[in-house]
């Protein structure tokens, strides 16, 4: 399977890396190459800036340039476009200002390397994605920077390609565990009960949902700061059937929900997986304490790419790493885009 086959169902594809140098830019390059061979018009934007020629923290780490085919649409800034020297027209100049100039949507008139730099706010990136679709992009790729996940939100993308790599750990088992934990978090399942789902979706604020159909609103300060405050609220209502959090859901609140329920199962519902922030814990650990996580809008995981090299540090055997991650993630296409025959290892 090629990576372009894996992303076929999604018109808007987010690329997310589990860390810096996890191979996301190489994955983007592979997708661009394959889509060009298919004759597809592509748009590339980013959430934040990525694609600069050297790493912003360590100049010794050369970053692969993102080469775009003629007619590709790219979100960049006026300054970066001029500096690239690539011939291009600019059908849309946005109002979004960044430290590197104003964000523009450019159409390349020749093959070239342009630094991708979209708006900093996810909502604004969403507008750029729609602009590119309107300008004729059959597929739009949203490149996230460093380990940011916001680009994976279902509001922006129809599916995600996740990049993992040796940079996460020098220990293969630990690397596999951390990748699995990240995938579990990113692919949190939808609320199964249709009625519960529509009740949660209708809420404007965070709340406790009760069996009878009522809801007790939760103060924002309880959700974020004084999380212990949720314990008496939950214990006072045996008829609580779910906790709904609008906005960010953080680990301390989950801890307190678990404490309040003393092991009795309870579902915590949030908008989508990009709003869930786990510190050192994992979804599995919370589940074992009876706290289930569910989302209103699940994120389809299209593929996972593996990068066997941690720059300036260590490396794994490419085939072995790919196979190890594939074994951890049944049903998910796992690819090393630089391996010539990825299908040689059974998924």
């Amino acid at each position, binding site marked *: 399977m090629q990576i372009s086959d894996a992303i076929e169902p999604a018109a808007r594809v987010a690329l997310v890396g589990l860390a810096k140098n996890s191979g996301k830019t190489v994955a983007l390059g592979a997708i661009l190459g394959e889509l060009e061979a298919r004759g597809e018009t592509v748009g590339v934007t980013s959430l934040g800036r*990525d694609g*600069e020629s050297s790493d912003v923290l*360590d100049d010794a780490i050369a970053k692969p340039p993102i080469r775009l085919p003629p007619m590709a649409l790219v979100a960049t800034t006026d300054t970066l476009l001029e500096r690239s020297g690539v011939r291009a027209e600019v059908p849309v100049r946005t109002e979004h200002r960044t430290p590197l100039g104003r964000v523009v949507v450019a159409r390349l008139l020749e093959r070239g390397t342009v630094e991708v730099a979209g708006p*900093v706010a996810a909502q604004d990136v969403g507008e750029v994605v729609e602009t590119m679709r309107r300008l004729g992009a059959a597929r739009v790729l949203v490149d996230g920077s*460093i380990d940011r996940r916001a680009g994976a939100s279902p509001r922006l993308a129809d599916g995600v390609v996740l990049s993992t790599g040796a940079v996460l750990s020098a220990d293969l088992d630990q690397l596999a565990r951390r990748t699995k934990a990240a995938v579990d978090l990113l692919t949190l399942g939808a609320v199964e009960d249709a009625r519960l789902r529509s009740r949660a979706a209708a809420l404007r604020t965070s709340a406790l949902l009760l069996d009878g159909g009522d809801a007790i609103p939760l103060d924002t300060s309880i959700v974020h*700061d004084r999380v212990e405050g949720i314990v008496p609220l939950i214990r006072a209502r045996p008829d609580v059937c779910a906790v709904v959090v609008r906005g960010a*859901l953080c680990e301390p609140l989950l801890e307190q929900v678990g404490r309040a329920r003393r092991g009795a199962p309870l579902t915590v519902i949030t*908008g989508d997986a*990009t709003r869930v922030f786990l510190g050192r814990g994992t979804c599995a650990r919370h589940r074992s304490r009876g706290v289930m996580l569910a989302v209103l809008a699940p994120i389809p995981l299209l593929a996972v790419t593996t990068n066997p090299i941690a720059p300036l540090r260590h490396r794994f055997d490419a085939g072995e790493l790919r196979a190890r991650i594939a074994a951890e993630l049944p049903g998910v296409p796992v690819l090393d885009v630089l391996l010539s025959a990825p299908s040689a290892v059974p998924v």
Partner: protein
Amino acid sequence: MSSVAGRASLEAVRPYGDHLDDGLVQMSFTLPVDHGPLAREAALALVTQMGLVRPEIVHAKSLTKGYTYFVVFAQCNHTVDCSQLGATSSSTRAMSEEQVDAYIGEHIARPLVVIGASTGTDTHSVGIDSILNLKGFDGRHGLEAYHWFRAHNLGSQVPNTALLAKAFELRADAILVSQTVTQQGLHLHNLTELVELVEAEGKRRDVLLICGGPRISDELAKELGFDAGFSKGTYPNDVAAFIAQEIAAREGRSADASAAA
């Protein structure tokens, strides 16, 4: 010669040591080699590999068994063309404290709420203190002293969630985080997490996110999803000028947008 009347040409800049354009460089480093002829040879070979010529060891000292510290002079024949740089420099106009206050009075005319902290496990508060506290730094007042700023300094080791809860409560216009990013980028996750939390709350458009620290550049800030990044050599008025001009531009933008709608 690339110098004219004792002034260096900005098209071919190289280090100044004893006289213009001599390219002299001084550096210090430690090699994990016992003090002795082998270590000296290794030091000279290393400096040559750096692209420098005529290396000269002016100081070598054993630090402990197996480690030698060097100070080396060498000559750099490379030059930098400054006219090709500057594409990433900020468009913010430099302003003094008085100019910032006058600018806010004229263009925004309301107090700007700024909240700041050293986040996560970072205990370094000197950076955020020098920007926010009344006393400021190097004779320039911090934002607390400004007429139009309402500055709140939460101190150090503040969790991202606590910083955000306070920012939302105070309806902050800008959030400043100070972070001592290490060589391995260990604190990067803490910075991206703050941005992701603001995104998850759906409030990214409502607040300016600014980070600062010794290894933070504007480029890194943008890559992390911040609106600006400030590094060494930043004074409170630089941050104040950025906040004032950026908010004026954004509020101007929203006024334009509603007029067009």
